[in-house]
């Protein structure tokens, strides 16, 4: 570059006064463009194009305008950055569409049957309108409860083994297969429970406890992982303090380590319950469906919320509407339970986590 003449330098100085040398778009510009794009997209949607197409139009229009302006003012590198920002943000918003759509659909369709009868009656002898899911609620609670009873001790003990006892190869192998076990398809877990009981009790067997075993296969790895992670967070100093007080290892684990990690483990267990309580496939092949209340998990078929929603939907009868209403109401109830469990899990971890830190 040549040495600037005096006049050039003067114009440079002048320019820095009016506009910065590294020029950036004023912060309001993207928002203004966005507003304009939304207006155009909205107008298109109102004019008869579908809402989805309107949204696509909005995003494309916004991206095109911002990039053009940015390229002119800020240069190509900044323009590219703005493209990526737009893409990344719209990807996130796109992912929210199904979530919102699912929730809206379930709520709008499910509320029709959120009545007292729905919660207090079974489907025994019900044809057409009326009936409820009382039998399915008791079934779901019993089977999930049994699965929790099986999974929590096994899962916690396995987590304790991995953190407090395991050394070397076996630990690595078990950790690896716990992760792999997380990926077992739920239907395969169901078939496993069926095959296990069919070998003992003969083919065609259906019992509540079979469903609990199937759900345990899905639940145990989740409980193991959360126990393991929480136990690892317990400071070693506390173990040493207990050892120095002449506490045997098993009491140290039971009375010091586990209580310290308990909130975290409870969170993990709650999330594990939330994961399996909506499972349909494994129960379909192990527990089946029935129209009446069955409180004995060792004797015959039981109804559960997800499976009864499924059957209300596939065999609605004539006219189909009462059954479909029941299916949606069961779905809504299920989603409320799952969301509530998730919320409870967050609350437990938020409420107790700081205390565990010391």
């Amino acid at each position: 570059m040549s040495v600037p003449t005096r006049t050039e330098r003067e114009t440079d100085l002048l320019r820095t006064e009016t506009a910065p040398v590294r020029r950036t778009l004023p912060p309001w510009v993207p928002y203004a463009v966005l507003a304009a794009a939304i207006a155009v997209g909205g107008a298109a949607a109102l004019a008869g194009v579908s809402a989805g197409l309107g949204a696509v139009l909005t995003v494309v229009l916004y991206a095109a305008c911002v990039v053009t302006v940015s390229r002119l003012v800020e240069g190509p590198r900044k323009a590219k950055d703005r493209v990526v920002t737009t893409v990344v943000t719209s990807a996130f918003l796109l992912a929210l569409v199904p979530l919102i759509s699912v929730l809206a659909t379930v709520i709008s369709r499910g509320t029709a049957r959120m009545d007292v009868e729905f919660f207090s009656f079974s489907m025994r002898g019900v044809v057409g309108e009326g009936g409820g899911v009382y039998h399915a609620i008791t079934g779901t609670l019993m089977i999930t409860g049994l699965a929790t009873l099986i999974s929590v001790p096994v899962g916690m003990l396995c987590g304790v083994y991995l953190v407090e006892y395991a050394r070397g190869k076996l630990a690595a192998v078990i950790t690896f297969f716990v992760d792999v076990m997380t990926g077992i398809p739920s239907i395969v877990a169901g078939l496993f429970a069926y095959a296990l009981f069919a070998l003992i009790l003969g083919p065609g067997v259906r019992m509540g406890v079979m469903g609990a075993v199937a759900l345990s296969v899905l639940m145990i790895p989740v409980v193991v992982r959360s126990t393991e992670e929480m136990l690892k967070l317990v400071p070693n100093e506390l173990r040493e303090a207990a050892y120095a007080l002449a506490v045997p290892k098993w009491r140290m684990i039971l009375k010091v380590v586990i209580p310290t990690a308990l909130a975290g483990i409870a969170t993990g267990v709650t999330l594990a319950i939330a994961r399996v309580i909506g499972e349909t496939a494994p129960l379909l092949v192990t527990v089946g469906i029935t129209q009446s209340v069955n409180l004995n998990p060792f004797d015959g078929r039981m109804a559960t919320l997800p499976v009864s929603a499924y059957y209300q939907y596939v065999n609605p009868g004539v006219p189909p509407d009462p059954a479909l209403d029941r299916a949606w109401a069961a779905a809504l109830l299920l989603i409320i339970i799952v969301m509530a469990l998730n919320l409870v899990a967050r609350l437990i971890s938020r409420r107790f986590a700081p205390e565990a830190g010391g």
Partner: protein
Amino acid sequence: MPLSETPSAVARPRPRAGDRVFAGLSTGAGLLILVVLAGVAAFLLVEAWPALTAPPEEVPGGRGVALYVWPLLFGTALSAVFALLIAAPLAVTIALFVTYYAPRALAQGLGYLIDLLAAVPSIIYGLWGFTVLAPATVGPSGWLADNLGFVPLFAGPVSATGRTMLVAILVLAVMILPIITAVVREAFRQVPRLHEEAAHALGATRWEMLRMAVLPFGRSAVIGASMLGLGRALGETMAVTIVLSVSGGVTVNLISSGNPSTIAADIALQFPESTGLAVNTLIASGLVLFAVTFAVNMAARTVINRRSEFSGAN
């Protein structure tokens, strides 16, 4: 201040016995994991055996287990692979958004919203896919058939109900999205802050920083996470069962009404009504599904674990 008259006289319980019992119990629980996995394979094999050894004409479909499972395996792979092709890029961009673009104060909440997608039970995705998504795809599918009909995927004729492979793929994509996002986010969180700052200090824009410092670091996590998602999509049952209208042919046509079923959906549809050898056949197909997902998950975990060994972030 002497404390001598206190507790050393107090009898202590036999610590040795307690230790041995507790160590035994927890070791047993650890081994039980391996036993259960082996048990899944063993019991499925035992119950599948009659179908595997039966004369082909007695197996449902009349042509033996292999030919019974093959179209289902094809449908399973087709739906899972396409679902992955949609979900993986989307999941990576969402992970980028939550980690690097969302306002700090909102990031955790927004991540939680994505996690909620994983909390919705699959039966609900099925009902939603059937009632909302399927009808919504009929129009666009018609457009695809008219304008891109020369691509085998969109050959048509378009299904009138929308209960097509395309809808099954979209629903599966939504379902595996949060799983992939969670693993990728975790990897991005471990990117050393110093690398990011180094990139910023060189005058990089945010996107240039991500390309220089973050994406290379997260590459194998993305691969591992995608395989996890694939495993999940392969085994997903209820959503596909409800959404897909099945005719059993082997075709890559995504928008017609003649769709291959998937192993999992086929089991869910047939199992409750089946007896005898039909049950054994379904369990044999379940064994195939177990083997496939087990292999995919093992590969995924190997990739993810190798990454954490080499990351050097800790």
